[in-house]
């Protein structure tokens, strides 16, 4: 709760608005928002919706940087708005826009259907190397084996990395950082035997060779997933796979 008793600080929030039913193109609108030092940009945007303009649309839920809903461009940089604080911009104006490189449905809401299709295309589930019944109990997996993929399994699908990837912006078909990180997560899981099936996508037209190692995706990742690493490891994997096919007719994936 803001303490109104102290001298109330007010910050200007500039929001990129777009209503497909009335606007030809997006345009900016500035709101004056009273704030306290512990308020996030998300809370600032919520204040606008609650008290200044009920028609402002944006996604949010958990408020604690784990649900992945509230990614926005904040002063041109992709951030989760729930863990970005207004105090870090004050007294200057802060500019809030929908995530770059995605079509805008309305205001701060992007169309993420393309991302979901990519996620579905990578077979993001265990294809067992050795099937096991429940009665046989769990697969054994050492902490070292877990460590190989755990980082890539931490992706919250917030898509900040896509907003940071100019190659995705230039070619929306590129499978992109997060989906590749998740693909890699399953490929290097000791329980999984589906690498060969996933490699077709890795080396395909939409695959990893779109990446030019800008590396900004990993910079903006709020969960230290390092998707650039997954993409670039798979360039090597695809290349090895390519050359091994001259040695063995089945290629290098096994």
């Amino acid at each position, binding site marked *: 709760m803001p303490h109104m008793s102290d001298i109330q600080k007010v910050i200007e929030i500039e929001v990129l608005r777009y209503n*497909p039913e009335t606007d030809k193109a997006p345009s900016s609108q500035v709101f004056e928002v009273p704030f306290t030092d512990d308020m996030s940009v998300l809370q600032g945007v919520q204040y606008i919706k609650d008290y200044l303009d009920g028609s402002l649309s944006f996604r949010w839920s958990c408020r604690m940087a784990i649900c*992945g809903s509230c990614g926005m461009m904040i002063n041109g940089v992709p951030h989760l708005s729930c*863990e970005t604080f207004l105090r870090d911009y004050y007294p200057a104006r802060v500019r809030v826009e929908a995530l770059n490189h995605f079509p805008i449905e309305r205001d701060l809401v992007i169309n993420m259907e393309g991302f979901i299709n990519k*996620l579905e295309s990578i077979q993001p589930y265990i294809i067992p190397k050795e099937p096991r019944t429940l009665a046989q109990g769990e697969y054994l997996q050492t902490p070292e084996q877990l460590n190989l993929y*755990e980082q890539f399994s*931490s992706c919250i699908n917030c898509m900040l990395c896509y907003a940071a990837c100019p190659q995705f912006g230039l070619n929306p078909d590129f499978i992109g950082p997060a989906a590749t990180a998740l693909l890699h997560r399953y490929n290097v899981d000791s329980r999984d035997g589906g690498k060969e099936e996933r490699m077709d996508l890795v080396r395909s037209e939409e695959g990893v060779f779109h990446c030019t190692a800008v590396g900004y995706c990993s910079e903006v990742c709020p969960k230290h997933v390092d998707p650039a690493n997954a993409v670039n490891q798979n360039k090597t994997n695809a290349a090895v796979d390519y050359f091994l096919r001259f040695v063995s007719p089945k290629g290098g994936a096994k």
Partner: protein
Amino acid sequence: METYKADVVIIGGGGAGLRAAIAVAELDPSLRIALVSKVYPMRSHTVAAEGGSAGVKLPTDKLDYHFNDTVAGGDWLCEQDVVEYFVAQCPVELTQMEHWGCPWSRTPDGHVNVRAFGGMKIERTWFAADKTGFHMLHTLFQTSIKYPSIKRFDEHFCVDLVVADGRVQGAVTIEIASGELTLIEARAAVIATGGAGRVFRENTNGGVVTGDGMALAYRHGVPLRDMEFVQYHPTCMPGTGLLFTEACRGEGGFLVNKDGYRYLQDYGLGPAEPTPRNKAMELGPRDRLSQAFWYEQQKGRTIDGPHGSVVHLDLRHLGEAKLRERLPQIYELAEQFLGVDPALAPIPVRPAVHYTMGGIMVDGLCASPLPGLYAAGECSSVGIHGANRLGSNSLSELCVFGKRAGEEAANFAKSVPPGHSAELLKQAQAVEQRVLGMVKKTGGNERIATLRKEMAQTMEDGCGIYRLADTMQKTCDKLDELKQRFKNVHIEDKSSVWNTEWLLAIELEYQLDVAQAMAYSALNRRESRGAHQRLDGFEARDDVNFLKHSQAHYVADGAPRIDYGPVKITKSQPGTRAYGAAGEKAEQERNASHV
């Protein structure tokens, strides 16, 4: 209006809904499943669960121990036959999660590791660092992609169930992106929409946790059971209410007051020992810990902060390396949101609303009294949490009862014929008229945010950690008033695409119904049990009059009607609920008397 013909419709795409969908798909791949979620499934609030998921694992543990902890933790308001089924299924389902790829934390030899949790006699909480819910949700979501019979309706908001011939035959949804409505025909429905913690002011819950499914069932005559039992989690961030997992204490964290004193020893939870002892001190159950905070506050032994009184969660003695390994998310939350390095300074915490023990009344097969309607997860009251849930039981519940609800719904769907499409469409069109009317209506003057704030405040005032008849009555009156004022609500946004103001209004209406069920159930329970504690002459548990479930029945335009149902007791007679040294003594006496 578009129509989609399914066999089973599942409303809610969190842990329970996804598990239910997979269960239907595995049981019979020919059944068409519609999985409706108002957010993309991986945004569901399961994602925020941190500490872990309970299931007997160690050779020293027994299903009976898990049963006893759960029933006593719930202050004997549990359905004991259901708890027995639950504890037996937990290890099976958690192993299933392992086979699906959940990155459980491991012991050096590669087995799944377990940690201590509040109210649990033996370490049995499976965990994936401190992001267990996140990993379980993403594992379930990604696994669900494997099944072609699951048709997802992502970002579709359910506005009503369609009931015909005395059974559920579908659901009506708004596609949020277009604002257009869809009728989903189905021969059975599973509600898995999660809790309703957002009706309270300070809570750990995400914005989506608005009790939608509870209200949907309730309005169709299904009772909401045990709604007065609302869990306060003892260690939350002041102001925002964000959660610091119980695993902080499971790993050995201390709770201290302004004098640096581990005050829990003053509330029957001692003795205070340097390392955690199960079911004692910081590893006591959540209701007791939150209540102890309240008393410390009364005694003036808490610390004043900008968002009210706090105590300190002290993790410093665990060291940075262990904190980074076991509690990485907690570490970052403390640093980013509070500017506190938990390896160097204690974290200020206070209780906040966390979980609704009650919900849609269902039997052990997840079936509600309305034929064809099933429920699982936090929105349901299947009877395992009683008056107080033990931490880490609810993630297991999602799996165990998500699966069961899915299978039961599938079997029901196969046993009944499809409905009459024309009649169902007629009903759906009436729903469409009603919900579109909310947007078209002009002349209202009540702001959604104002009503929501007043609701949240009155719930905190009347239905907090300790309760009094007169403040509960005020809350009931206030909610009646808010429901009247809601009729005059004003929606500024008249557009169709992504009109979230419209959805907020519908959610608020759901919340007001659920809040009423909570407040009236609380007012009527004239005893203290678990999370429902009174200070107005009903401080003791009253097994003679209140060892029974409350059932709130919806009354259109009026106060809910409250009645009571029996509690199933099989092998654990109600006893004294004691923790710490007192608890161990009581257990020895019980064991001796059984010989």
